[in-house]
Protein backbone atom coordinates (compact mmCIF):
# COMPACT_ATOMS: atom_id res chain seq x y z
CA UNK A 1 0.00 0.00 0.00
CA UNK A 2 2.83 2.25 0.87
CA UNK A 3 4.24 1.38 -2.53
CA UNK A 4 1.18 2.71 -4.33
CA UNK A 5 2.06 6.28 -3.44
CA UNK A 6 5.66 5.76 -4.52
CA UNK A 7 4.53 4.21 -7.75
CA UNK A 8 2.14 7.03 -8.50
CA UNK A 9 4.91 9.61 -8.47
CA UNK A 10 7.38 7.35 -10.19
CA UNK A 11 5.03 6.50 -13.03
CA UNK A 12 4.27 10.16 -13.68
CA UNK A 13 7.58 11.84 -13.06
CA UNK A 14 10.14 9.06 -13.32
CA UNK A 15 11.60 10.12 -10.02
CA UNK A 16 11.84 8.13 -6.86
CA UNK A 17 10.60 10.25 -4.03
CA UNK A 18 12.49 9.22 -0.90
CA UNK A 19 10.59 11.85 1.03
CA UNK A 20 7.62 9.55 0.63
CA UNK A 21 9.02 7.40 3.43
CA UNK A 22 9.09 10.42 5.71
CA UNK A 23 5.56 11.36 4.71
CA UNK A 24 4.48 7.87 5.67
CA UNK A 25 5.96 8.48 9.13
CA UNK A 26 4.29 11.87 9.32
CA UNK A 27 0.92 10.33 8.48
CA UNK A 28 1.35 7.98 11.40
CA UNK A 29 2.31 10.77 13.81
CA UNK A 30 -0.42 13.15 12.61
CA UNK A 31 -2.97 10.43 13.19
CA UNK A 32 -1.54 9.73 16.60
CA UNK A 33 -1.79 13.41 17.54
CA UNK A 34 -5.32 13.71 16.18
CA UNK A 35 -6.58 10.88 18.34
CA UNK A 36 -5.66 13.17 21.21
CA UNK A 37 -2.88 10.97 22.51
CA UNK A 38 -0.06 12.60 24.40
CA UNK A 39 3.56 12.61 23.30
CA UNK A 40 6.18 11.09 25.54
CA UNK A 41 9.18 11.89 27.64
CA UNK A 42 11.57 13.44 25.16
CA UNK A 43 11.36 16.13 22.61
CA UNK A 44 9.97 19.59 22.51
CA UNK A 45 6.34 18.52 22.67
CA UNK A 46 6.67 16.25 25.67
CA UNK A 47 3.45 15.56 27.52
CA UNK A 48 1.45 17.74 25.20
CA UNK A 49 -1.62 16.51 23.40
CA UNK A 50 -4.17 18.03 21.07
CA UNK A 51 -7.42 18.98 22.79
CA UNK A 52 -9.36 16.92 20.23
CA UNK A 53 -10.01 13.21 20.39
CA UNK A 54 -10.93 11.94 16.96
CA UNK A 55 -11.79 8.27 16.56
CA UNK A 56 -8.89 6.41 14.94
CA UNK A 57 -10.31 6.07 11.42
CA UNK A 58 -11.32 9.73 11.18
CA UNK A 59 -7.94 10.73 12.57
CA UNK A 60 -6.27 8.56 9.93
CA UNK A 61 -8.17 10.25 7.11
CA UNK A 62 -7.44 13.76 8.38
CA UNK A 63 -3.84 12.77 9.08
CA UNK A 64 -3.56 11.49 5.51
CA UNK A 65 -4.80 14.81 4.17
CA UNK A 66 -2.25 16.68 6.25
CA UNK A 67 0.43 14.35 4.90
CA UNK A 68 -0.84 15.17 1.39
CA UNK A 69 -0.40 18.87 2.12
CA UNK A 70 3.15 18.26 3.31
CA UNK A 71 3.79 16.40 0.05
CA UNK A 72 2.58 19.47 -1.86
CA UNK A 73 4.98 21.69 0.04
CA UNK A 74 7.80 19.25 -0.72
CA UNK A 75 6.98 19.30 -4.43
CA UNK A 76 7.01 23.10 -4.49
CA UNK A 77 10.24 23.44 -2.56
CA UNK A 78 12.29 20.41 -3.52
CA UNK A 79 11.13 19.17 -6.89
CA UNK A 80 9.61 21.93 -9.00
CA UNK A 81 12.68 24.19 -8.96
CA UNK A 82 14.80 21.29 -10.18
CA UNK A 83 12.28 20.28 -12.83
CA UNK A 84 12.07 23.82 -14.19
CA UNK A 85 15.81 23.88 -14.58
CA UNK A 86 15.63 20.56 -16.43
CA UNK A 87 17.95 19.03 -13.83
CA UNK A 88 19.13 15.45 -13.82
CA UNK A 89 16.57 13.08 -12.19
CA UNK A 90 19.39 11.95 -9.92
CA UNK A 91 19.37 15.39 -8.34
CA UNK A 92 15.67 15.06 -7.47
CA UNK A 93 16.47 11.77 -5.85
CA UNK A 94 19.16 13.33 -3.71
CA UNK A 95 16.93 16.29 -2.97
CA UNK A 96 14.11 13.99 -1.81
CA UNK A 97 16.53 12.07 0.36
CA UNK A 98 17.55 15.37 1.94
CA UNK A 99 13.93 16.24 2.62
CA UNK A 100 13.40 12.82 4.19
CA UNK A 101 16.33 13.32 6.54
CA UNK A 102 15.12 16.79 7.53
CA UNK A 103 11.60 15.54 8.30
CA UNK A 104 12.89 12.62 10.33
CA UNK A 105 15.06 14.94 12.38
CA UNK A 106 12.29 17.45 12.95
CA UNK A 107 10.06 14.63 14.19
CA UNK A 108 12.79 13.46 16.51
CA UNK A 109 13.32 16.98 17.82
CA UNK A 110 9.61 17.49 18.46
CA UNK A 111 8.45 14.20 19.87
CA UNK A 112 11.53 12.17 20.63
CA UNK A 113 12.55 8.80 19.31
CA UNK A 114 10.40 6.42 21.28
CA UNK A 115 7.68 4.12 20.02
CA UNK A 116 4.08 5.16 20.12
CA UNK A 117 1.03 2.96 20.03
CA UNK A 118 -2.44 4.01 19.05
CA UNK A 119 -5.20 3.78 21.63
CA UNK A 120 -6.40 0.25 22.11
CA UNK A 121 -8.75 -1.28 19.58
CA UNK A 122 -8.48 1.26 16.78
CA UNK A 123 -11.01 -0.72 14.75
CA UNK A 124 -13.70 -0.74 17.42
CA UNK A 125 -15.20 -4.04 18.33
CA UNK A 126 -13.92 -6.14 15.45
CA UNK A 127 -12.08 -9.25 16.62
CA UNK A 128 -8.30 -8.81 16.47
CA UNK A 129 -7.86 -11.85 14.24
CA UNK A 130 -10.00 -13.89 11.91
CA UNK A 131 -9.50 -17.59 11.36
CA UNK A 132 -9.08 -18.59 7.73
CA UNK A 133 -8.22 -22.20 8.51
CA UNK A 134 -10.50 -25.19 8.40
CA UNK A 135 -11.38 -27.19 11.49
CA UNK A 136 -8.35 -27.82 13.66
CA UNK A 137 -5.96 -26.22 11.17
CA UNK A 138 -6.07 -22.64 12.37
CA UNK A 139 -4.76 -19.91 10.07
CA UNK A 140 -5.41 -16.72 11.95
CA UNK A 141 -4.97 -13.48 10.04
CA UNK A 142 -4.99 -10.27 12.01
CA UNK A 143 -7.91 -7.96 11.30
CA UNK A 144 -5.57 -4.99 10.85
CA UNK A 145 -3.86 -6.77 8.02
CA UNK A 146 -7.16 -7.51 6.34
CA UNK A 147 -8.10 -3.85 6.69
CA UNK A 148 -4.76 -2.78 5.21
CA UNK A 149 -5.08 -5.19 2.33
CA UNK A 150 -8.69 -4.19 1.67
CA UNK A 151 -7.87 -0.48 1.71
CA UNK A 152 -4.92 -1.06 -0.65
CA UNK A 153 -7.09 -2.89 -3.13
CA UNK A 154 -9.76 -0.20 -3.02
CA UNK A 155 -7.19 2.56 -3.48
CA UNK A 156 -5.61 0.65 -6.33
CA UNK A 157 -8.93 0.20 -8.09
CA UNK A 158 -9.81 3.86 -7.65
CA UNK A 159 -6.42 5.04 -8.90
CA UNK A 160 -6.47 2.69 -11.87
CA UNK A 161 -9.94 3.85 -12.81
CA UNK A 162 -8.96 7.46 -12.35
CA UNK A 163 -5.78 7.20 -14.43
CA UNK A 164 -7.34 5.28 -17.29
CA UNK A 165 -10.88 6.53 -17.55
CA UNK A 166 -11.06 10.17 -16.49
CA UNK A 167 -9.94 13.24 -18.37
CA UNK A 168 -7.61 14.31 -15.58
CA UNK A 169 -6.14 10.81 -15.35
CA UNK A 170 -5.49 10.72 -19.08
CA UNK A 171 -3.90 14.15 -18.89
CA UNK A 172 -1.67 12.89 -16.11
CA UNK A 173 -0.59 9.94 -18.22
CA UNK A 174 0.12 12.39 -21.03
CA UNK A 175 2.43 14.30 -18.67
CA UNK A 176 4.07 11.02 -17.73
CA UNK A 177 4.85 10.28 -21.35
CA UNK A 178 5.79 13.72 -22.59
CA UNK A 179 5.29 16.79 -20.42
CA UNK A 180 6.17 19.25 -23.18
CA UNK A 181 3.56 17.85 -25.51
CA UNK A 182 1.04 17.78 -22.67
CA UNK A 183 1.51 21.50 -22.16
CA UNK A 184 1.01 22.05 -25.92
CA UNK A 185 -2.41 20.45 -25.47
CA UNK A 186 -3.29 23.02 -22.83
CA UNK A 187 -2.61 20.83 -19.83
CA UNK A 188 -1.40 22.69 -16.75
CA UNK A 189 1.42 20.32 -15.92
CA UNK A 190 2.55 21.93 -12.64
CA UNK A 191 -0.97 21.85 -11.27
CA UNK A 192 -1.52 18.17 -12.08
CA UNK A 193 1.88 17.23 -10.72
CA UNK A 194 0.92 18.97 -7.50
CA UNK A 195 -2.27 16.91 -7.44
CA UNK A 196 -0.19 13.77 -7.94
CA UNK A 197 1.98 14.67 -4.97
CA UNK A 198 -1.08 15.38 -2.85
CA UNK A 199 -2.68 12.03 -3.68
CA UNK A 200 0.54 10.15 -3.24
CA UNK A 201 1.14 11.93 0.06
CA UNK A 202 -2.36 11.05 1.18
CA UNK A 203 -1.93 7.41 0.29
CA UNK A 204 1.47 7.41 2.00
CA UNK A 205 0.11 9.10 5.12
CA UNK A 206 -2.83 6.73 5.30
CA UNK A 207 -0.57 3.72 4.99
CA UNK A 208 1.59 5.14 7.78
CA UNK A 209 -1.44 5.39 10.05
CA UNK A 210 -2.75 1.93 9.17
CA UNK A 211 0.59 0.17 9.40
CA UNK A 212 1.23 2.09 12.62
CA UNK A 213 -1.99 0.57 13.94
CA UNK A 214 -0.72 -2.87 12.95
CA UNK A 215 2.60 -2.73 14.75
CA UNK A 216 3.25 0.60 16.47
CA UNK A 217 4.94 3.76 15.36
CA UNK A 218 8.53 2.69 15.72
CA UNK A 219 10.12 6.09 16.09
CA UNK A 220 10.99 8.72 13.49
CA UNK A 221 12.74 6.17 11.26
CA UNK A 222 9.55 4.15 11.07
CA UNK A 223 8.91 5.05 7.44
CA UNK A 224 12.46 4.62 6.23
CA UNK A 225 12.66 0.88 6.67
CA UNK A 226 9.27 0.63 4.99
CA UNK A 227 10.64 2.92 2.34
CA UNK A 228 13.31 0.40 1.43
CA UNK A 229 10.76 -2.37 1.33
CA UNK A 230 8.40 -0.19 -0.66
CA UNK A 231 11.16 0.21 -3.21
CA UNK A 232 11.46 -3.56 -3.47
CA UNK A 233 7.73 -3.76 -3.95
CA UNK A 234 7.59 -1.32 -6.82
CA UNK A 235 10.43 -3.10 -8.56
CA UNK A 236 8.58 -6.35 -8.06
CA UNK A 237 5.46 -4.83 -9.53
CA UNK A 238 7.29 -3.29 -12.45
CA UNK A 239 8.28 0.32 -11.90
CA UNK A 240 5.33 2.62 -12.30
CA UNK A 241 2.67 -0.05 -12.55
CA UNK A 242 0.00 0.42 -9.86
CA UNK A 243 -1.73 -3.00 -9.92
CA UNK A 244 1.79 -4.44 -10.09
CA UNK A 245 2.70 -2.61 -6.89
CA UNK A 246 -0.12 -4.36 -5.04
CA UNK A 247 0.86 -7.78 -6.32
CA UNK A 248 4.46 -6.95 -5.47
CA UNK A 249 3.40 -6.07 -1.92
CA UNK A 250 1.64 -9.39 -1.49
CA UNK A 251 4.58 -11.35 -2.87
CA UNK A 252 7.08 -9.56 -0.66
CA UNK A 253 4.79 -10.03 2.33
CA UNK A 254 4.67 -13.76 1.65
CA UNK A 255 8.42 -13.96 1.12
CA UNK A 256 9.01 -12.23 4.44
CA UNK A 257 6.51 -14.52 6.15
CA UNK A 258 8.77 -17.44 5.26
CA UNK A 259 11.70 -15.92 7.12
CA UNK A 260 12.05 -18.13 10.23
CA UNK A 261 11.41 -16.36 13.51
CA UNK A 262 15.00 -16.58 14.72
CA UNK A 263 16.19 -14.67 11.62
CA UNK A 264 13.49 -12.00 11.83
CA UNK A 265 16.12 -9.27 12.05
CA UNK A 266 17.06 -10.07 8.45
CA UNK A 267 13.64 -9.19 7.07
CA UNK A 268 14.99 -6.15 5.28
CA UNK A 269 17.68 -8.30 3.73
CA UNK A 270 14.95 -10.44 2.21
CA UNK A 271 13.45 -7.35 0.68
CA UNK A 272 16.77 -6.48 -0.87
CA UNK A 273 17.43 -9.99 -2.08
CA UNK A 274 14.05 -9.89 -3.81
CA UNK A 275 14.89 -6.50 -5.28
CA UNK A 276 18.20 -7.72 -6.73
CA UNK A 277 16.69 -10.89 -8.12
CA UNK A 278 13.91 -8.98 -9.81
CA UNK A 279 16.26 -6.43 -11.34
CA UNK A 280 18.31 -9.29 -12.72
CA UNK A 281 15.57 -11.59 -13.90
CA UNK A 282 12.49 -9.54 -14.68
CA UNK A 283 13.20 -5.82 -14.77
CA UNK A 284 9.78 -5.23 -16.32
CA UNK A 285 8.01 -6.50 -13.20
CA UNK A 286 5.93 -9.52 -12.33
CA UNK A 287 2.94 -8.55 -14.44
CA UNK A 288 4.86 -6.44 -16.91
CA UNK A 289 5.39 -6.82 -20.57
CA UNK A 290 8.44 -5.44 -22.29
CA UNK A 291 7.76 -1.80 -22.94
CA UNK A 292 6.49 -0.70 -26.30
CA UNK A 293 9.32 0.39 -28.53
CA UNK A 294 9.34 4.09 -29.16
CA UNK A 295 8.55 4.87 -32.77
Amino acid at each position, binding site marked *: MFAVGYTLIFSILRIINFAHAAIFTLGAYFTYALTGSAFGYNGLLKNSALPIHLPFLLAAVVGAMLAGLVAIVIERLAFRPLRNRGADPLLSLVSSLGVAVVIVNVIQYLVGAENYSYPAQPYGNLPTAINFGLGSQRIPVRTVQIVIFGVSVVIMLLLTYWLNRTKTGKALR*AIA*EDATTASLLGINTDQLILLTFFLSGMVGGLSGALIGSSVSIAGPYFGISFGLRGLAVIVLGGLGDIPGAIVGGVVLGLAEAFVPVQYIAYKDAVAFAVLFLMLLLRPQGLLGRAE*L*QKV
Partner: protein
Amino acid sequence: MRTVQPLLDIQKLFVNYDGIQALEDVTLAVYPGEIVTLIGANGAGKSTTLRSISRLIKPHSGEMLYGGRSLSHLRAHEVVRLGIAQVPEGRRVLTRQSVFDNLLLGAYTRNDTHAIAEDIDRHFTTFPRLAERRNQLAGTLSGGEQQMLAIARALMSRPKLLLLDEPSLGLAPIMVQEIFTIIQRLHASGVTILLVEQNATLALKYADRGYVLEAGRITMSGPASSLLTDERVKQAYLG
Protein backbone atom coordinates in the same frame (compact mmCIF):
# COMPACT_ATOMS: atom_id res chain seq x y z
CA MET B 1 -0.34 49.04 -46.51
CA ARG B 2 -2.75 46.64 -44.92
CA THR B 3 -5.42 47.95 -42.68
CA VAL B 4 -6.17 44.68 -40.86
CA GLN B 5 -4.32 43.93 -37.68
CA PRO B 6 -2.00 40.92 -37.75
CA LEU B 7 -3.21 37.86 -35.88
CA LEU B 8 0.35 37.20 -34.79
CA ASP B 9 2.93 39.92 -34.59
CA ILE B 10 6.48 39.11 -33.55
CA GLN B 11 8.86 42.00 -33.02
CA LYS B 12 12.60 41.92 -32.46
CA LEU B 13 12.66 38.48 -30.90
CA PHE B 14 15.95 37.32 -29.39
CA VAL B 15 16.36 33.82 -28.00
CA ASN B 16 19.45 32.14 -26.61
CA TYR B 17 20.10 28.68 -25.27
CA ASP B 18 22.75 28.67 -22.54
CA GLY B 19 24.34 31.75 -24.02
CA ILE B 20 24.22 30.51 -27.63
CA GLN B 21 22.22 32.89 -29.79
CA ALA B 22 19.44 30.95 -31.56
CA LEU B 23 17.28 33.84 -32.78
CA GLU B 24 18.44 37.38 -33.48
CA ASP B 25 16.08 40.23 -34.09
CA VAL B 26 13.33 38.12 -35.66
CA THR B 27 10.34 40.15 -36.78
CA LEU B 28 7.44 38.53 -38.57
CA ALA B 29 3.69 38.86 -38.88
CA VAL B 30 0.87 36.52 -39.78
CA TYR B 31 -2.44 38.01 -40.91
CA PRO B 32 -5.83 36.39 -40.39
CA GLY B 33 -6.57 33.71 -42.96
CA GLU B 34 -3.03 33.47 -44.32
CA ILE B 35 -0.66 30.57 -44.73
CA VAL B 36 2.77 31.90 -43.91
CA THR B 37 5.79 29.66 -44.26
CA LEU B 38 9.09 29.90 -42.46
CA ILE B 39 11.85 28.13 -44.36
CA GLY B 40 15.50 27.59 -43.57
CA ALA B 41 18.26 25.03 -43.20
CA ASN B 42 18.80 22.71 -40.25
CA GLY B 43 19.48 24.64 -37.08
CA ALA B 44 18.33 27.96 -38.53
CA GLY B 45 15.97 28.51 -35.61
CA LYS B 46 12.60 27.56 -37.12
CA SER B 47 11.49 25.31 -34.27
CA THR B 48 12.86 27.82 -31.79
CA THR B 49 10.51 30.42 -33.26
CA LEU B 50 7.48 28.15 -32.86
CA ARG B 51 8.54 27.08 -29.39
CA SER B 52 8.76 30.73 -28.37
CA ILE B 53 5.24 31.42 -29.63
CA SER B 54 3.90 28.42 -27.69
CA ARG B 55 5.84 29.64 -24.65
CA LEU B 56 7.82 26.45 -24.29
CA ILE B 57 10.90 28.61 -24.04
CA LYS B 58 11.30 32.13 -22.74
CA PRO B 59 12.79 34.60 -25.17
CA HIS B 60 15.54 36.86 -23.97
CA SER B 61 13.82 39.90 -25.37
CA GLY B 62 11.28 41.00 -27.94
CA GLU B 63 7.54 41.17 -28.09
CA MET B 64 4.96 38.67 -29.34
CA LEU B 65 1.43 39.92 -29.83
CA TYR B 66 -1.52 37.69 -30.61
CA GLY B 67 -4.62 39.60 -31.66
CA GLY B 68 -2.98 42.65 -30.09
CA ARG B 69 -2.46 40.84 -26.79
CA SER B 70 1.01 40.16 -25.42
CA LEU B 71 1.99 36.53 -24.97
CA SER B 72 4.98 37.42 -22.86
CA HIS B 73 3.64 36.55 -19.45
CA LEU B 74 1.67 33.45 -20.34
CA ARG B 75 2.50 29.83 -19.72
CA ALA B 76 2.36 27.18 -22.42
CA HIS B 77 -1.01 25.78 -21.46
CA GLU B 78 -2.58 29.24 -21.37
CA VAL B 79 -1.53 30.01 -24.93
CA VAL B 80 -3.62 27.06 -26.13
CA ARG B 81 -6.72 28.56 -24.53
CA LEU B 82 -6.20 31.74 -26.58
CA GLY B 83 -6.49 29.71 -29.77
CA ILE B 84 -2.90 28.85 -30.70
CA ALA B 85 -2.21 25.16 -31.30
CA GLN B 86 1.10 23.63 -32.32
CA VAL B 87 1.84 20.39 -34.12
CA PRO B 88 5.39 19.87 -32.87
CA GLU B 89 8.33 18.58 -34.86
CA GLY B 90 8.39 14.79 -34.88
CA ARG B 91 4.58 14.62 -34.31
CA ARG B 92 4.87 13.72 -30.62
CA VAL B 93 1.65 11.72 -30.41
CA LEU B 94 1.06 10.07 -27.04
CA THR B 95 2.23 6.62 -28.00
CA ARG B 96 0.86 4.89 -24.92
CA GLN B 97 -2.69 6.16 -25.35
CA SER B 98 -5.30 5.29 -27.94
CA VAL B 99 -5.95 7.31 -31.08
CA PHE B 100 -9.29 8.28 -29.58
CA ASP B 101 -7.75 9.45 -26.29
CA ASN B 102 -5.12 11.46 -28.16
CA LEU B 103 -7.95 13.36 -29.84
CA LEU B 104 -9.81 13.69 -26.57
CA LEU B 105 -6.74 15.22 -24.92
CA GLY B 106 -6.48 17.61 -27.86
CA ALA B 107 -9.76 19.02 -26.54
CA TYR B 108 -8.43 19.27 -22.99
CA THR B 109 -9.15 22.99 -22.81
CA ARG B 110 -12.80 22.53 -23.81
CA ASN B 111 -15.77 21.46 -21.75
CA ASP B 112 -18.49 21.13 -24.39
CA THR B 113 -18.72 17.35 -24.35
CA HIS B 114 -21.20 17.07 -27.20
CA ALA B 115 -19.33 19.34 -29.56
CA ILE B 116 -16.12 17.46 -28.72
CA ALA B 117 -17.71 14.16 -29.69
CA GLU B 118 -18.96 15.75 -32.93
CA ASP B 119 -15.50 17.11 -33.71
CA ILE B 120 -13.94 13.71 -33.15
CA ASP B 121 -16.49 12.15 -35.51
CA ARG B 122 -15.78 14.86 -38.06
CA HIS B 123 -12.04 14.18 -37.92
CA PHE B 124 -12.70 10.47 -38.25
CA THR B 125 -14.65 11.24 -41.42
CA THR B 126 -11.79 13.33 -42.82
CA PHE B 127 -9.17 10.80 -41.71
CA PRO B 128 -10.74 7.38 -42.26
CA ARG B 129 -7.39 5.75 -41.49
CA LEU B 130 -7.60 7.14 -37.98
CA ALA B 131 -11.20 6.00 -37.63
CA GLU B 132 -10.23 2.42 -38.40
CA ARG B 133 -7.57 2.59 -35.71
CA ARG B 134 -9.42 4.58 -33.08
CA ASN B 135 -8.78 2.08 -30.27
CA GLN B 136 -5.21 1.29 -31.27
CA LEU B 137 -2.32 2.76 -29.29
CA ALA B 138 -1.02 5.78 -31.17
CA GLY B 139 2.49 4.33 -30.98
CA THR B 140 1.47 1.55 -33.35
CA LEU B 141 0.53 3.96 -36.17
CA SER B 142 2.71 4.58 -39.21
CA GLY B 143 4.55 7.89 -39.49
CA GLY B 144 1.97 9.35 -41.86
CA GLU B 145 -0.90 8.25 -39.67
CA GLN B 146 0.81 9.76 -36.66
CA GLN B 147 1.19 13.04 -38.50
CA MET B 148 -2.52 13.03 -39.33
CA LEU B 149 -3.30 12.27 -35.71
CA ALA B 150 -1.03 15.07 -34.51
CA ILE B 151 -2.78 17.53 -36.82
CA ALA B 152 -6.27 16.32 -35.90
CA ARG B 153 -5.34 16.49 -32.23
CA ALA B 154 -4.17 20.09 -32.57
CA LEU B 155 -7.42 20.95 -34.34
CA MET B 156 -9.43 19.54 -31.43
CA SER B 157 -8.71 22.73 -29.47
CA ARG B 158 -10.42 24.65 -32.30
CA PRO B 159 -7.44 26.93 -32.87
CA LYS B 160 -7.50 30.20 -34.79
CA LEU B 161 -3.78 29.91 -35.41
CA LEU B 162 -2.13 26.59 -36.20
CA LEU B 163 1.65 26.23 -35.94
CA LEU B 164 2.99 23.32 -37.99
CA ASP B 165 6.59 22.21 -37.50
CA GLU B 166 7.87 20.24 -40.48
CA PRO B 167 4.74 18.15 -41.06
CA SER B 168 6.30 16.47 -44.11
CA LEU B 169 9.44 15.30 -42.32
CA GLY B 170 10.24 11.65 -42.93
CA LEU B 171 7.13 10.90 -44.94
CA ALA B 172 6.82 9.16 -48.30
CA PRO B 173 6.04 11.50 -51.23
CA ILE B 174 2.42 10.34 -51.45
CA MET B 175 1.93 11.02 -47.77
CA VAL B 176 3.57 14.43 -48.10
CA GLN B 177 1.10 15.27 -50.83
CA GLU B 178 -1.76 14.13 -48.64
CA ILE B 179 -0.58 16.25 -45.71
CA PHE B 180 -0.36 19.33 -47.92
CA THR B 181 -3.85 18.68 -49.25
CA ILE B 182 -5.04 18.64 -45.64
CA ILE B 183 -3.22 21.92 -44.96
CA GLN B 184 -4.90 23.49 -47.95
CA ARG B 185 -8.30 22.30 -46.78
CA LEU B 186 -7.69 23.76 -43.31
CA HIS B 187 -6.71 27.04 -44.90
CA ALA B 188 -9.94 27.02 -46.92
CA SER B 189 -11.93 26.45 -43.74
CA GLY B 190 -10.48 29.66 -42.29
CA VAL B 191 -7.64 28.50 -40.04
CA THR B 192 -4.59 30.75 -40.09
CA ILE B 193 -1.39 28.75 -40.49
CA LEU B 194 2.27 29.32 -39.73
CA LEU B 195 4.09 26.51 -41.50
CA VAL B 196 7.71 25.60 -40.84
CA GLU B 197 9.22 23.50 -43.60
CA GLN B 198 12.47 22.26 -45.06
CA ASN B 199 10.62 21.23 -48.19
CA ALA B 200 10.74 24.82 -49.38
CA THR B 201 9.34 24.24 -52.87
CA LEU B 202 6.19 22.64 -51.63
CA ALA B 203 5.74 25.05 -48.73
CA LEU B 204 6.09 28.09 -50.99
CA LYS B 205 3.62 26.62 -53.48
CA TYR B 206 0.93 26.41 -50.85
CA ALA B 207 1.74 29.52 -48.82
CA ASP B 208 0.67 33.13 -49.31
CA ARG B 209 3.88 34.61 -47.95
CA GLY B 210 7.22 33.32 -46.76
CA TYR B 211 10.15 34.19 -44.55
CA VAL B 212 13.66 32.79 -44.93
CA LEU B 213 15.55 32.17 -41.71
CA GLU B 214 19.35 31.83 -41.78
CA ALA B 215 21.36 31.24 -38.63
CA GLY B 216 18.73 32.86 -36.45
CA ARG B 217 18.08 35.89 -38.66
CA ILE B 218 15.34 36.63 -41.18
CA THR B 219 17.23 37.26 -44.41
CA MET B 220 14.38 37.45 -46.90
CA SER B 221 10.63 37.75 -46.90
CA GLY B 222 7.84 38.39 -49.33
CA PRO B 223 5.00 36.83 -51.29
CA ALA B 224 5.53 33.09 -51.66
CA SER B 225 5.34 33.30 -55.45
CA SER B 226 8.22 35.76 -55.68
CA LEU B 227 10.37 33.81 -53.22
CA LEU B 228 9.75 30.75 -55.36
CA THR B 229 11.37 32.47 -58.32
CA ASP B 230 14.05 34.34 -56.37
CA GLU B 231 17.51 33.31 -57.53
CA ARG B 232 19.05 33.25 -54.04
CA VAL B 233 16.22 31.16 -52.62
CA LYS B 234 16.43 28.83 -55.61
CA GLN B 235 20.17 28.42 -55.07
CA ALA B 236 19.97 27.74 -51.38
CA TYR B 237 16.73 25.88 -50.82
CA LEU B 238 15.07 24.76 -54.01
CA GLY B 239 17.98 22.76 -55.37
